[in-house]
């Protein structure tokens, strides 16, 4: 009985893993095949890899687009981590009645979907003269309410004695935050960094609205427009998808350990 149950568990998990990984395999096979072969569902390696890569480089400014995407994601993530973790620290370590009330309102705004904000945000960006700029994409995404919540949950577990000791040693509150708290909370910051970087790297709707000139486009916009072309070149699209996905997978595997620890920290309390 127990054996049967065990094998059922392994079959279920095996199947789930297979389904999860399969599209990645197919993507790798896809970059070596021609459009005709991909549309016909061919599932073996072909020899069109170099042709697909060359076509991608010929038809798009892939370096520029990759650079745009990286720039937005890196600057956006750094600013977001700085602003949201400082805010969370302020709410958690310096509690006051007014700030607790504000915090409640802040949490409630998590309910407001982006669709409800995009039109007034678009008008605002136009008024600021930031239409078709990368700054126009980054600015509204810096404050992420989920990250404030996430950081505050983690700061709850931070040992107060360390902060007290530093105060007695004469450190000011900013020194304490930047030289003591931030380094100790490395795992939390890594988890938040993955979350934020992913959100920025993969963002689609907002850049679609803000960006207009093709030299400012990001990877998601490029993939989307390649795919909706009248005669889409699937081989080229596959290469573009790999280029868009690979950095995320690498970052994930590099920071995976911190990521799980960070998640644990946030759920614990």
């Amino acid at each position, binding site marked *: 009985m127990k054996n049967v149950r065990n094998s059922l568990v392994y079959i279920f998990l095996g199947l789930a893993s297979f389904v999860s990984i399969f*599209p990645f395999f197919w993507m790798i096979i896809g970059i070596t095949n021609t459009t005709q072969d991909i549309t016909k569902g061919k599932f073996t390696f072909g020899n069109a890899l170099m042709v697909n890569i060359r076509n991608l480089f010929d038809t798009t400014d892939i370096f520029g687009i990759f650079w745009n995407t990286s720039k937005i994601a890196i600057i956006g993530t750094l600013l977001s981590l700085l602003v949201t973790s*400082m805010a969370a620290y302020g*709410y958690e370590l*310096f509690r006051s009645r007014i700030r607790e009330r504000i915090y409640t309102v802040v949490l409630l705004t*998590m309910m407001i979907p982006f*669709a409800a904000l995009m039109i*007034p945000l678009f*008008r605002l960006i136009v008024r600021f003269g930031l239409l078709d700029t990368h700054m126009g994409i980054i600015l509204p995404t810096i404050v992420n309410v989920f990250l404030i919540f996430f950081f505050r949950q983690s700061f709850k577990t931070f040992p107060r004695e360390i902060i007290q000791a530093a105060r007695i040693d004469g450190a000011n509150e900013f020194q304490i*935050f930047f030289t003591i708290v931030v380094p100790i909370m490395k795992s939390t910051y890594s988890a938040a960094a993955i979350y934020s970087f992913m959100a920025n790297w993969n963002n689609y709707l907002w850049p679609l609205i803000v960006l207009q000139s093709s030299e400012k486009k990001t990877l998601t916009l490029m993939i989307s427009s390649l795919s909706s072309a009248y005669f889409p070149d699937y081989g080229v699209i596959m290469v573009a998808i790999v280029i868009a996905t690979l950095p995320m997978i690498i970052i994930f595997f590099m920071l995976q350990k911190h990521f*799980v620890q960070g998640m644990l920290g946030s759920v614990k309390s």
Partner: protein
Amino acid sequence: MLRRAKYNKKNYYGWIFVFTSLVLMATFLIYPIIDSLILSTKSCKGIVCEPNGLGNIKRMLNDEVFHKAFKNTFIFFIVQVPIMLTMALMLASMLNNKKLKYRGFFRTAIFLPTVTSLVAYSVLFKMMFGYEGLINQFLMFIQLVNEPIPWLTNAFWAKVTIIIALLWRWTGYNMVFYLAALQNVSSEVYEAAEVDGASKIQQFFKITVPLLKPIILFTAIMSTIGTLQLFDEPMNLTGGGPSNATLTISQYIYNQSFVYVPNFGYAATLSYVIVFIVAILTIIQFKVAGDE
């Protein structure tokens, strides 16, 4: 006196730490919410707006395309979210077993879809689910079907395809939250239940589900918000078609603002429908979970 000074200093630093976030929130969150409310009472052609009172609401009630988008979004929500959360919970409780072999592999594999961009995976699925594509080839090869399924061109199957895609992308994401929460449940609880003769299924419903209730509520609310905002997937997988069968509310708002002659006023009214439903569904979910 001393206490007062200390309090003021604390208060002062508290404000400095939250200051930047408050300024940004006021500009990019609070102001847009108010602006959107005002816009929803106007009718616009491009940048020219006129007061319209409740006209937008009247128009909405008679707008059949909107009704369709509303219905589609709701179908995605009602079908996909329960299946996804149940699967995520099952996977997490299986992976929580310390004696399980290859745990790390299973966990990483099932989480992997989470790192893909919504656009990239949608485009990938569009190719896989093509009429002559891989999925149909496979189904015909194992003789499950005699002729290809029109995944993307039939109203029913297009919805199914989007639900499959959503399940693939988001199940692992939710699983990680459950796994993280389960790590905090001491294994002694399960060992004690085992000694008392509780079956695995009883343990799942009597221990795992009740202990994880807060986090289940959290993922349910996040998924609700996510599904009601659905945009990237239908836009890139089916383009909202065939004949609006997969059009979502978000996509319709986008079309009203940036594809057709822009009517920001009407679009703002439509966007408040999403806010309204999210609020109602969240209250229901809190009530069902029985917290507070």
